[in-house]
Structure formats: structure tokens, C-alpha cells
């Protein structure tokens, strides 16, 4: 399985956020920034929006040959949500894809 760099994963995630924004109303759009909050306080993303984003990101990763399940049980059971920010979600993707690649 190909290994993507942190920059590539971050860009892919931001591209998915941009794509999601196309379907979201003004005032509900996600901030497109490596330091943005994705889910939780300070983000307009509700749980359905998060599910859509996760599926979009999985699909985008799959098109690059990276097969990961971002709702992996370990990800869901962490004390701090890995979905809270662009940075933490990037960490999660890198971690899961590294495991898959080994």
C-alpha cells in the first residue's frame, strides 16, 4: 500500500472539506486551514456532516490506493476525538495507513 506524506494527507483532507462546503449553506461552511477545527465546539459540522466527510476522505484515500476505515473501533474509543481538527484527523489517517502498510 502506498504511503502518503503528511502534506499529501492534509491536502487531501482539505480538498474533501472544500468539496463538502459546496453542499453547505453560507454560515455553515468549514474553515479550510491546516489549523481548523473540524468537529465539536467551534465547528459548524454536525454528526451527519462528519459521517459524510469521513466517507469522502476514505473514498479519496482509496482512489490513491490507501484503504483505511476511519471509524475504526480504536479511533472511536479514544479519549480525545481524532476528528476534532484537521491536524488530529491527519494524524489518524497517517497512523492507520502506516498500520495497513506494514
Amino acid at each position, binding site marked *: 500500500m502506498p504511503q502518503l506524506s503528511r502534506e499529501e494527507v492534509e491536502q487531501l483532507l482539505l480538498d474533501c472539506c472544500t468539496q463538502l462546503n459546496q453542499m453547505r449553506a453560507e454560515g455553515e461552511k468549514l474553515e479550510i486551514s491546516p489549523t481548523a477545527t473540524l468537529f465539536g465546539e467551534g465547528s459548524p459540522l454536525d454528526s*451527519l456532516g462528519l459521517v*459524510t466527510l469521513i466517507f469522502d476522505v476514505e*473514498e479519496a484515500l482509496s482512489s490513491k490506493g490507501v*484503504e483505511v476505515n476511519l*471509524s475504526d473501533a480504536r479511533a472511536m474509543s479514544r479519549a480525545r476525538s481524532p476528528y476534532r481538527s484537521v491536524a488530529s484527523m491527519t494524524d489518524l489517517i497517517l497512523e492507520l495507513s502506516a498500520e495497513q502498510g506494514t
Partner: protein
Amino acid sequence: MKSGRQIFVSGCSRGLGLALVEHYLAAGDFVIGCSRSECSVTSERFAHFQVDVTDSAAVSQMFREVKQRFGHLDALLNNAGTAAMSPFALQPAAAAKKVFDLNVHAVFGMTGQALRLLRSSKHPRIVNFSTVAVPYRLEGEAAYSASKAAIEQWSRVLAHELGGMGITVNMVGPSPIRTELLRGISEEALRKLIDRQAIRKWATPQDVINVVDFFLRPESDMITGQVLYLGGAG
């Protein structure tokens, strides 16, 4: 009916599951099925996976392969299920757990995996299977009917969660059909159950298929979170 859909049927090797496979193949659809045992169906529009749906790793692997080979799904029919008929006081805990593992947790797992493949369908559908044992509160079927009641409530909530994606989630609740699921129940007990129905006769797989067809129709985009029981129960 529009044909050419990609329909997944769990528990496809016998009984109602097999009837569903044969029906949708005859309708011109592509059917993907899974079962623990081998499946006798042969068609160029049928793919079979020999998988135990309670094995989450095997289910994940199966759906990865489904995605690679077929791309998307239009419908998931969570037909696989089991029954354990016994008075509660005499039922070993392990037997009740087995019922919940297959009738509840496996449905959660299968659906979680299938969601990713259903998203790209124009009319994505999930159909779950309940039973008239839920509304009739049948003695001797506590674990079985509780597992199906759990799936009913879960499906209603899921209908709300997935409505934004256009995915409908509905349930059919068959009245007694002569399949292996009813093996072990006396003819007298079944007769008494059927006598409680508004329509006092045995159901057939075709009666269930008729309901599933209705849920799968493109015109049923607004039908979600519903349970449709056969025979007038509920």
C-alpha cells in the same frame, strides 16, 4: 420494475434469502450474496461470498472485495438471522447471546460496511427483517423477538441518521413461512399463531418479496423507518 441494480442479500443459501436471490436475478438485477454455507445459485449476475456475518474481520474483507469488484450497492437486504425457541427460564445464556450476535450485532456490522457502498446509489435502500413475534409478544420467543425489536428501533433511528444521504431504512415483519427458521416449533403452536392473524394463512416467500420490492422501488424514496408486518399483525 427497474432492473440492473446491485443488491446484496445476506443469508442467501436457503429459505427466504435464496428466494430473494432468485427473484432479483429473474428481475435482471445483479445479486451479491453471502452465507456460511455454500450456495447452489449459478448465474453470471450472481456473486457469492462464504462468510460468517458475525465475524467482523471477514465482513470487512468481504466488503472491501465487493467495492473493488462491483463499486457500489443499491440495496442491502439484511436477511441472515436465527431463532432460538425456548422458554426464557430454560434458555442457556449462550443461546440468547448467539441470537443477538447474529440478529443484532452482525446487522450493525454489515450495515456499517455497506453504507460506504450505498452512498453512490441513486435510490439506496436498506431492508431489515423483523417478525410478527414482536407485536404478538409470543411466549417462548423472548430472545428472538427481543433481538428483532432491537433491530426495529435501531432501524427507525438509522432512518433519521441516513435520511440526509437519501438512504431509506425499512423493515418487513413476516408472519410464519415454512422455512427452516421454524424448525422445532410444533404445528399446533404455529396454527395458534396463524389464528391470531387478520389473514389466517401461511405466508410465502413471495409475500415478503412483494414488501421488499415496494421498499426498493425508486418511487419509495419517501418511505423510511417503517415496519410492514404480514397478515395484519401490529
